[in-house]
C-alpha cells in the first residue's frame, strides 16, 4: 500500500468516525425522548430506518452474490476484486442493516427476545435468521478468499462456500416477505414484490460496488480496469430497467380502474402528496439507465455518476413503495385524532437523517478498517 493510499484511508477513517459519533448523539437523543423525535406516526409507522434496512440488506445480499459469481462461472478477470465485495457483504452492510432495525425499534434493549422468544411465523424473524446466515457465510467466504489469495489454499476449496453465498444472495427475496405477505397492504401483497426486491437488491449492491471501485482506484488501493467496471454498470442498468418495468406495471394496474383504494394510493404517488419523490425516482432511474449504458470514457466518469443515480433511484423506489401504501390504509374514515394525524406525506426528521448518516458512516468506517487491516486489495 502506497503512502498516498494510506493517507487517504486515514483521512476517511477520521471523517467516518466523526459522522458515526454524530449519529450516536442523534440516537441517544432519540432514546431519551422516544420515537416522537422521528416524523413517523400511527398511519406512517415506518420510514427512513426501514428503507435503510431494505437497502443495506440488499447490498449485503448482492455483494455476497457478486463475490461468488466469478468463482462459480469462471470470470477470472473479476476474481481479484471479490474479497472486497465479500467483505462489504460480510461486515459493512450487515452491520448497517441490523443497526437500521435496532434504531427503528422502541425498545432496543429487548432485541435479545429475537433469540429467546422468536416467532417462527413472523417474516421479520425469518429476516433475522437470514441476516445471521449472511454474516456467517460472508465471514467464512471472505476468509477463504484471503487464504486463496495468499496461496495458503487451493482455489477449488472456495467452491462450496461460493455456492452457499450465491444461494444466500438470491434468498434476499425473503426480505420482501416482510412486506409482500401482508394482506392488509394490497400494494405490497403481490407476487411481483419478491422479484422487485431481488432486482433492486442486486442493482443497489452493484451501484455501491461500482462507486467503491472508483474510489479505491482513485486512491490506488486497486487498479480495476474501466471496461470491467463498465460490465458491472451494464448489468446494473439491466436490473434497474427490469425494476422500472415492474414499477410502470404497478402504476398502470393501479390507475386503470379509475377509483378505489389502490387507485387512490397510486394517484397520490404520481400526482398527489408523493408526486415530487415519485418523479424524482423516475428521473433517477432514467438518468442511471442513460449514464450506465453510455460508452464509457477512459476514466469512466459517466459510470460513477450513473451508479450514484442508481443508488438514489433504489432509495426512492423503496421509500415511495413504503409511503404510498402506509398513507392509504384500508379503513380511512374520519375519526378522533391519533398521533401523527394530519401529515399527507413523510419527510424524515433531522434526527432520523443524523442517525441514518451515522449508521452508513459506521458501515463505511468498518469497510475502511477492513481495507487497511486485511489483504483485500491486489
Amino acid at each position: 500500500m502506497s503512502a498516498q493510499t494510506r493517507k487517504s484511508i486515514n483521512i476517511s477513517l477520521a471523517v467516518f468516525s466523526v459522522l458515526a459519533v454524530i449519529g450516536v448523539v442523534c440516537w441517544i437523543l432519540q432514546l431519551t425522548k422516544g420515537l416522537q423525535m422521528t416524523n413517523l406516526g400511527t398511519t406512517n409507522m415506518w420510514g427512513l430506518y426501514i428503507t435503510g434496512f431494505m437497502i443495506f440488506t440488499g447490498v449485503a445480499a448482492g455483494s455476497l452474490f457478486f463475490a461468488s459469481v466469478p468463482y462459480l462461472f469462471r470470470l477470472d478477470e473479476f476474481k481479484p476484486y471479490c474479497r472486497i465485495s465479500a467483505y462489504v457483504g460480510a461486515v459493512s452492510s450487515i452491520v448497517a442493516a441490523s443497526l437500521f432495525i435496532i434504531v427503528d425499534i422502541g425498545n432496543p434493549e429487548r432485541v435479545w427476545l429475537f433469540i429467546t422468544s422468536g416467532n417462527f411465523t413472523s417474516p421479520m424473524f425469518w429476516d433475522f435468521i437470514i441476516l445471521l446466515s449472511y454474516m456467517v457465510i460472508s465471514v467464512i467466504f471472505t476468509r477463504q478468499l484471503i487464504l486463496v489469495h495468499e496461496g495458503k489454499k487451493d482455489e477449488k476449496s472456495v467452491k462450496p462456500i461460493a455456492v452457499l453465498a450465491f444461494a444466500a444472495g438470491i434468498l434476499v427475496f425473503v426480505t420482501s416477505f416482510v412486506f409482500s405477505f401482508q394482506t392488509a397492504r394490497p400494494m405490497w401483497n403481490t407476487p411481483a414484490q419478491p422479484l422487485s426486491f431481488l432486482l433492486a437488491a442486486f442493482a443497489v449492491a452493484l451501484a455501491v460496488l461500482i462507486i467503491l471501485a472508483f474510489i479505491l482506484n482513485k486512491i490506488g488501493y486497486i487498479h480495476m480496469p474501466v471496461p470491467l467496471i463498465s460490465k458491472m454498470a451494464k448489468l446494473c442498468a439491466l436490473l434497474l430497467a427490469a425494476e422500472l418495468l415492474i414499477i410502470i406495471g404497478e402504476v398502470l394496474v393501479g390507475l386503470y380502474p379509475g377509483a378505489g383504494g389502490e387507485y387512490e394510493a397510486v394517484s397520490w404517488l404520481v400526482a398527489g402528496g408523493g408526486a415530487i419523490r415519485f418523479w424524482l425516482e423516475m428521473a433517477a432511474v432514467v438518468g442511471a439507465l442513460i449514464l450506465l449504458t453510455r460508452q464509457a470514457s477512459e476514466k469512466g466518469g459517466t459510470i460513477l455518476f450513473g451508479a450514484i443515480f442508481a443508488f438514489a433511484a433504489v432509495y426512492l423506489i423503496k421509500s415511495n413503495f413504503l409511503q404510498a401504501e402506509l398513507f392509504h390504509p384500508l379503513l380511512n374514515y374520519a375519526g378522533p385524532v391519533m398521533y401523527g394525524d394530519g401529515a399527507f406525506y413523510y419527510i424524515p426528521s433531522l434526527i432520523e437523517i443524523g442517525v441514518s448518516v451515522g449508521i452508513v458512516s459506521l458501515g463505511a468506517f468498518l469497510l475502511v478498517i477492513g481495507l487497511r487491516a486485511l489483504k483485500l486489495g491486489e
Partner: protein
Amino acid sequence: MRYAMAIDIKKCTGCHSCSVACKVENNLPDDIWWNRVLTVGGENMDTPMGKFPNVKMEYLPINCQHCENPACVKACPVGATYKRKEDGIVVQDYDKCIGCRYCMVACPYSGVRQFNWKKPEYAIDIAMGDKDVTKHQYNTVEKCTFCVHRLARGEKPACIETCPNRARHFGDIDDPESEVSKAIQGRTYFKLLEEKGTKPSIYYLT
C-alpha cells in the same frame, strides 16, 4: 369458548361514549384511543356523507377485532402479541413488545393498534381507570383488551356497559344463550374486511 362483540350500527348515534368510557377505564395516555367511533363517508369526524340536502350520517365504532386468525400475531417477531387459548382474546404483552410496529403494519384495521411514541402523558394529573389495568409503557404498542381485567371479575367490557343506546353486545359466541349470540340471531350482519381472511370477532348488525 370465544368472546365476541356485536355492534348494532342502526342503534349507534355516534355519541362517542364508548370511546370515552374506554379511555377512562383503561387510563389511556394522550393521543391513544383503543376504541374509536369513525364517521362513514364524511370528510371530517361527525360530518355527513353526501351533498346537502341529500345527506346521511353513519358511524362505524372500531376497536381491535380480536380475530380468530390474527395477522398481528403471525407478524410479531417475538410473540409479544398472542391469542389466548381459553377465550380467543388477542392480547399484547407490554413487557415483551420490542416496539417494531410490525403488528400495526400487518393489521388491516388501521389504527386499532397504537404506539406510545412518547412517555405516556395524561390529560389530568390524577390517574384514572381501573386499578387492575396494566400500566402503559413507553415505546410499546397497545390496543383494546376486551377489558380482560373486568372479565376476570365477571364484568362486561366498559364500552358495553356505557353505550346509552345499548348498541353493543358482548359474550361467548360459542354459547347460543349468550347475550352476543342472541343479539345476532335473526339479524343481518357484516364483519370488517372479512375478505382479508382474519376472521374477526366483531359482528356489525345492520
